[in-house]
């Protein structure tokens, strides 16, 4: 069953589809679709199984944050299916299963331990039994297999680029910051992890850290690029945390942004969905969720329930309440609310949380990230214009905790602040 949008008259003819393989079966795909979205179009949400209980795993965030969509792709283990773009005859295999991702024989482990498995005290009563248990644990452990191909080290030295400014992330805020710096004739490198950058960004380059307090290392197509910059603007954005309810790991639960991306690519997340938002939603996310509801309706997706979004005209039911559980046989099929007897059937759940900063990189570069209990998030410390306590390091956009509506203005302010800082460093303005 395919969840693809029908061709709309007047648009350019869609490029010819090709096929990828998943667990040996062929599935049609379109250019630019991440593997996870390709399989979503075919209703395939379960890509692998989790480490301990062998619970189903599949795409959730769509951006490489959550790590739920791991699969073996083209002989490489532990690849995030949401980041890897489908190409003709791509070989996608599930990991950590006995059988298939959908019917994993070891999924009985999840049933066998309804109250959880405390691995600390498992089989400690007898030394012999313990040895057997440890041996069994080893056999069951491990996600990926060794990569199929041998990858040799590149004999060439790592390329070092020396620039005045580096902007990491070419989203709304990053591009604004880059534009501000470029307009001031500052030699600036813009890098983005997306492979299809429509900007002057170094595309497909993912930052792996600030090493030795000096070298920004980027990973692009399996090679390291070393960047030395006097100023750095971090515009790596935000993440969408999963809901805190039972069943919050079920395949078929996806984030708002992944849903948006899928629709842009002409893929419906399902036929009938629950569109649920956290309570006390901020304005930007609420607006985006409403826009998503319209887009879903236009794409022919039924919204069974819209939760905490006020009145959503295209939804069958609109309620305010707390998600108590997402349920289903191996994937999201039903939603249950606190204080509500009725359950809501669906074949996917789209979750709209307030995004939280992807703060790890800010911390790694030496910034403090105090926990904000109201937002339930770590917020990197910075000034209104993105200046941080580290000279030359600026935050722009959602990584600083601002919303996507404010990201553009924030990015511009950060770019201006970085420009001013660099000018002062080189001895006054010009």
């Amino acid at each position, binding site marked *: 069953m395919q969840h693809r949008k029908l061709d709309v008259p007047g648009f350019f003819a869609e490029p010819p589809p090709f096929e990828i393989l998943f667990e040996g079966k062929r599935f049609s795909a379109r250019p630019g679709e991440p593997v996870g979205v390709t399989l979503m179009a075919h209703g395939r949400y379960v890509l692998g199984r989790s480490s301990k209980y062998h619970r189903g795993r599949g795409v959730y965030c769509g951006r490489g944050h959550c790590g739920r969509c791991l699969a073996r792709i083209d002989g490489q283990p*532990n690849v995030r299916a949401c980041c890897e773009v489908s190409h003709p005859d791509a070989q996608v295999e599930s990991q950590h299963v006995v059988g298939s991702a959908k019917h994993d024989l070891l*999924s009985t482990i999840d049933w066998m331990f309804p109250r959880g498995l405390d691995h600390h005290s498992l089989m400690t009563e007898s030394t012999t039994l313990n040895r057997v248990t440890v041996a069994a644990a080893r056999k069951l452990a491990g996600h990926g297999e060794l990569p199929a191909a041998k990858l040799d*080290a590149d004999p060439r030295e790592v390329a070092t680029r020396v620039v005045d400014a580096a902007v990491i992330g070419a989203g709304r805020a990053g591009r604004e910051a880059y534009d501000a710096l470029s307009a001031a004739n500052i030699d600036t490198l813009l890098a983005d992890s997306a492979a299809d950058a429509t900007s002057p960004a170094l595309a497909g380059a993912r930052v792996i850290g600030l090493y030795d*307090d000096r*070298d920004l290392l980027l990973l692009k197509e399996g090679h390291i690029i070393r960047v030395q910059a006097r100023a750095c603007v971090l515009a790596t954005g935000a993440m969408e945390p*999963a809901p805190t309810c039972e069943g919050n790991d079920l395949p078929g639960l996806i984030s708002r942004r992944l849903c948006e991306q899928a629709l842009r690519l002409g893929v419906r997340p399902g036929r009938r969905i629950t569109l649920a938002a956290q309570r006390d939603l901020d304005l930007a996310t609420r607006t985006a969720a409403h826009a998503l509801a319209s887009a879903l309706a236009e794409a022919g997706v039924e919204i069974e329930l819209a939760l905490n979004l006020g009145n959503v005209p295209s939804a069958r039911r609109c309620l305010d309440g707390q998600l108590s559980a997402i349920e289903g*046989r191996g994937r999201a099929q039903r939603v249950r609310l606190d204080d509500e007897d009725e359950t809501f059937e669906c074949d996917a759940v789209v979750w709209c949380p307030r995004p939280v900063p992807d703060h790890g990189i800010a911390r790694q570069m030496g910034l403090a990230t105090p926990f904000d209990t109201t937002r339930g998030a770590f917020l990197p410390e910075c000034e209104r214009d993105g200046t941080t306590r580290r000279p030359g390091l600026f935050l722009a956009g959602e990584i600083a905790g601002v919303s996507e509506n404010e990201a553009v203005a924030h990015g511009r302010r950060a770019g201006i602040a970085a420009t001013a800082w660099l000018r002062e460093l080189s001895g006054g303005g010009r």
Partner: protein
Amino acid sequence: MTNRELVCTCEDVTRRDVERAIARGHTDMESVKRYTGLGTGICQGRSCMARTAQILTERGYDGDALVPTTARPPLWPVPLAALAAGKDLPPTYPSDASPAWTSPTTRRPQAKGLAPLPSRAQIVIVGGGIMGLATAYHLAKNGISDVVVLEASYLNAGASGRNGGGIREQWATEQHVLLMRESIALCREFAKELGINVWLRQGGYLFVTAKQEVAASMGDNLALQNRLGVPSRLLKRSEMQHMVPELETSDLVAAVYNPEDGVIFPWPFLWGYAEGARKRGVHVATFTPVQSMIVEAGRVRGVETTRGTIRADLVINAAGAWSPAIARMAGVTLPNRPERHEILVTESLRPFLGPLVSELGLGLYFSQSLRGEIVGGLGDPDEPMGIELRSSQRFLVRMARAMVHRMPRLGGVKVLRQWAGCYDVTPDGHPIIGEVDEVGGFFQLHGFVGHGFMMAPVVGKIVGEHLAKGTDHPLVRDNRLGRFAHGHVTAKETMIIG
């Protein structure tokens, strides 16, 4: 599927698991992470840290308890082959050539809700690493439970929580061989005695070398080991290739293998010993650094901590890399030098590597953990002395090159994380144990040069029994600090790896 609320989907840690950890006394982010395993999977904490902090907040913890776990690079899985590119080496970091801006990652948060300290104890142990805790456990087992263990940070903050988990009988000195034979035997019984799994897997250690001069000493060590009952044996190239098919053996000149050696998971040792000691009346205090020592009439009489003073008949210095600083408080100068050693861990793979592989003469070692990750380290001859826990690019590059050379199939395997810990290095590679000439009431228990973890089960037993019952043992007799001054230095231990 059973209904569960997941906090960490990478490692299947549920909300119930987190609450249980908190209930069992793991009340800060680093401790909850270690006890539950959350944050150690492929997403390295992106999805679970905030939720964990929220749960801690609901349970009444705040401030320093909510500081997220140390952010270490790489922030994205990166293939070893990418890191191994080229031949240039980044400079040592930190150094004058490569100064640091980020602060060292040792943190001593002030956790709240700690039980009040007693003002007096029979024995105070400075250092809540495995050495101090194992000793405390055995003291209590032998009737001395009026003991206070003082740990400056959370349990597993020091070397005990940062090592690669290797345990071996293959050593160059009789003392170490005999000690380790007993220690491995104790490790086998640990889960049953302390009621917590330590995941011992005796897959053996495969020592290899590409250097002829090292091969010669390997032969001598082998003879010593066999004489003492260790079933280590030389391997032919074909046997090596059969045991580890992925190993590059063309440049190797010797290989020795002992099937009794193995790997464990370090953290539960500390929880097991701490719980075992507590059950017998020992007071284990975390987040309680010692600031000074009370010395009266040529004897140490107690310690002053950030949370109060404790007077004691005996103070044991089991502070690992921080032992010299503690000893200075009592006016004692130690010859120990702390030295950073770094480790990396890769993505999780189905089990394929049986033994721990260690290349002597190079300082490389790596093994496959029970979770399937390749864990390993590589010593750096240019590493300066000093307490340093930051991670460096130099290590990552050197380690990647060494791993990819020794096992080419690892080229495509991705690194998830690197970290660092300190070896507590002594001039002769042997520990410093026992009383000192300079001042009374001050017992040393450090200097284990990167292998203290594996020795702690037996050392803690021997020292505990010695202090409780006065039993004599060569370990306590022959390793005193005074040996350096009196010139009674024993044969140097050369089989140091990592």
